[in-house]
């Protein structure tokens, strides 16, 4: 019995000493000290070595899109590491194309800063900021889509281009959860710089959407950063076709506000698809743009209207409506926002109608 006790004590002591050595070695031997991150050969920041590059940048208020909180699972936080990033890790390769690997693109959450490091970041990302936002309103739009209104705290203002998106930081609200970012297109008028509106659809068991639908209340403060994204109107005068479904309404609503603000005279038609009449929303508001804009037509389309709903508009898939309704499409630019399936199907229809591939812009859900 005594032998067993002594053996357990000895083994435990050895384990304890090893753990202590690990802690001390992490503190003193693996202490990388202060390292310099050189950004675009224009700006240098000093950071504590040993952290991920993504964390270092966030600490300096430089926000790189990332949905997974730095776990290396979303593949969004790409940037170019010119020197000092170490070897490409197996955790990065699934998210990087051959060309990206040749171009020294890395996942910033997987690159550990162990020495001075030289990186390139898109200039637009340097203007991304974090905003404290107070929820000021929640409106039901359909059974699973809500409009969330936020006011920016203090006298903060956000400048964004119509069509861009922000990332909402979901706080921990579930045992065993952790903070995650999710991206949502801004749905509000870009002129209203003190507020942000988001149209969010509930994803079953989705971490962020469950938070928004079941936990977020009016008056709550949350964090968002942005703006991000390349989805916005071109500066041509070409006629435009907008195609969207569900929460894909958000960037199109924002773009229409922008057109109104800038007195745009571009011809535009907007096809908005839903499965049932009860899944259409903001119809009157969007219809009003027909009066307010110079040459705009709104075409809501319902796939399977219930006879009791007395739907008199177009029926069928939104892509079928575009195919049958849009004329002289070869001159058009197309702006799409919806599910990957809808984007793909719309692309095929638009190609058939003669819209050049280079003039089809989309904000894919993926």
């Amino acid at each position: 019995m005594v032998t067993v006790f002594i053996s357990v004590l000895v083994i435990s002591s050895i384990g304890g000493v090893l753990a202590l050595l690990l802690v001390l070695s992490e503190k003193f031997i693996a202490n990388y000290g202060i390292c310099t991150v050189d950004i675009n050969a224009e700006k240098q920041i000093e950071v504590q070595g040993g952290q991920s590059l993504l964390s270092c940048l966030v600490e300096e208020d430089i926000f790189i899109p990332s949905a997974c909180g730095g776990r290396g699972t979303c593949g969004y936080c790409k940037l170019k590491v010119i020197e000092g990033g170490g070897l490409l890790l197996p955790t990065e390769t699934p998210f990087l194309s051959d060309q990206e690997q040749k171009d020294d693109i890395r996942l910033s959450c997987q690159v550990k800063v162990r020495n001075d490091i030289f990186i390139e970041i898109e200039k637009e990302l340097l203007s991304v900021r974090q905003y404290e936002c107070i929820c000021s309103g929640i409106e039901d739009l359909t059974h699973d889509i809500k409009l969330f209104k936020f006011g920016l705290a203090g006298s903060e203002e956000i400048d964004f281009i119509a069509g861009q998106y922000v990332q909402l930081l979901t706080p921990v609200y579930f045992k065993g959860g952790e903070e995650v970012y999710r991206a949502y297109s801004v749905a509000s008028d870009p002129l209203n710089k003190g507020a942000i509106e988001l149209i969010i659809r509930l994803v079953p068991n989705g971490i962020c959407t469950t938070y928004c639908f079941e936990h977020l209340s009016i008056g709550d403060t949350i964090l968002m950063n942005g703006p991000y994204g390349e989805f916005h109107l071109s500066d041509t005068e070409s006629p435009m076709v907008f195609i969207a479904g569900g929460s894909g309404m958000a960037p199109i609503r924002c773009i229409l506000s922008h057109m109104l603000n800038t007195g745009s005279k571009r011809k535009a038609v907007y096809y908005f698809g839903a499965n049932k009449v009860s899944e259409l929303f903001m119809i009157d508001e969007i219809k009003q743009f027909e009066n307010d804009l110079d040459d705009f037509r709104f075409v809501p389309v319902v796939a399977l209207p219930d006879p009791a709903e007395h739907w008199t508009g177009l029926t069928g898939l939104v892509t079928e409506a575009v195919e049958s309704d849009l004329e002289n499409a070869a001159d058009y630019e197309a702006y799409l926002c919806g599910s990957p399936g809808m984007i793909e199907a719309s692309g095929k229809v638009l190609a058939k109608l003669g819209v050049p591939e280079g003039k089809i812009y989309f904000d894919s859900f993926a």
Partner: protein
Amino acid sequence: MKKTPEMEKLDNFLRSSRIVAGGFMGEDIRDVDEVIVADTRSVERLGYSLEQVAARMHEITHIAKEGLGVCVDVGAGLKGCVDEAKGRIVCPWPHPASFDKRLTTVTDVESGKEITWSDLHIHLIEEHGFFEGIGSAMRIEPVKLITIIF
């Protein structure tokens, strides 16, 4: 049987809300490998393999996708509806695999029985034999699944 550190880590991860709200295990107190063994036996008792089940789920999702959210006939007296959401979801197992957030809901027109799976479920069943723990909001009951899709 004593769990390896890897199994312990996976078990904790599956019970956390790091990938889906509420986790993958629900209130199931069994170890992950016990859940997998029990569900695999259920599938085999009905004369199917995990590969056959996953292949059929793939097939139905592929047909239902064409409906762009509208329920379509996927054959064998079934209607299939696909719903897509923004972003991708990753496999909780420690290997790189991510999937579109796509839900397929299949209804047996005659019986009215209905079942829903995600693209991630198909992978979890095919590669890991995992149908989620009992009490998990998105658990797929193997017997119910097989009864509907075959």
